[in-house]
């Protein structure tokens, strides 16, 4: 199951909530304002690091670029919209917003 998260972790609890329900191995894709979670060196970096130990983590590249986020946490993979579609080919989708 692919989990998408589109909310900034600084403003809502969507990120924390989604993380609680993650099954190990399931990919997480940050989109829209959700991508702020993977900016390196912010207060959510330790959480991202922890998630990465059990789950693959992706972020939508066009959303990173739009927000001027050049530096993302090690281990997080940037994908474009076709990469998003690729993840949907492999998994059912659970969209958290």
């Amino acid at each position, binding site marked *: 199951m692919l989990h998408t998260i589109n909310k900034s972790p600084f403003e809502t609890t969507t990120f924390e909530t989604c993380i609680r329900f993650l099954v190990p191995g399931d990919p997480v894709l940050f989109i*829209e304002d959700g991508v702020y979670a993977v900016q390196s060196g912010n207060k959510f970096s330790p959480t991202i690091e922890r998630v990465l130990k059990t789950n693959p983590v992706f972020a939508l590249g066009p959303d990173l670029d739009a927000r001027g986020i050049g530096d993302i946490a090690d281990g997080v993979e940037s994908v474009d919209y076709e990469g998003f*579609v690729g993840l949907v080919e492999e998994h059912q989708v659970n*969209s958290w917003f």
Partner: protein
Amino acid sequence: MKIGILLKEGPYNHQASDTAFKFAEAAIKKGHTVDAVFLYNDGVTNVTKLMDPPQDDRNIAARWSELSQKHGVEILACIAASKRRGISDDVLVEGSAITGLGTLTDIAIRNDRLVTFGD
């Protein structure tokens, strides 16, 4: 693969509509069928032809209309949600239609995936 999309927010105010569109485009480019985009909650306001954004901005209703006509994607607004928000047959862009929630059930059943975009 056959993909259905559920879009729960209106145009411009939330990026959900933009992301749904970009996702649909990319899916079609990769050879998938985007069967339908079902509009719910404020999402129904995506298809009013009265939309008239600045010239240098995207026209979201026109964009959905074009996607529908070029690639046969059904653009369907929930009737109950539409009535609350003043979306009627009088204002629909070409290629869109108003329908009941039963249709969303059909979309969920007949597609391999249902991808939701909201806020």
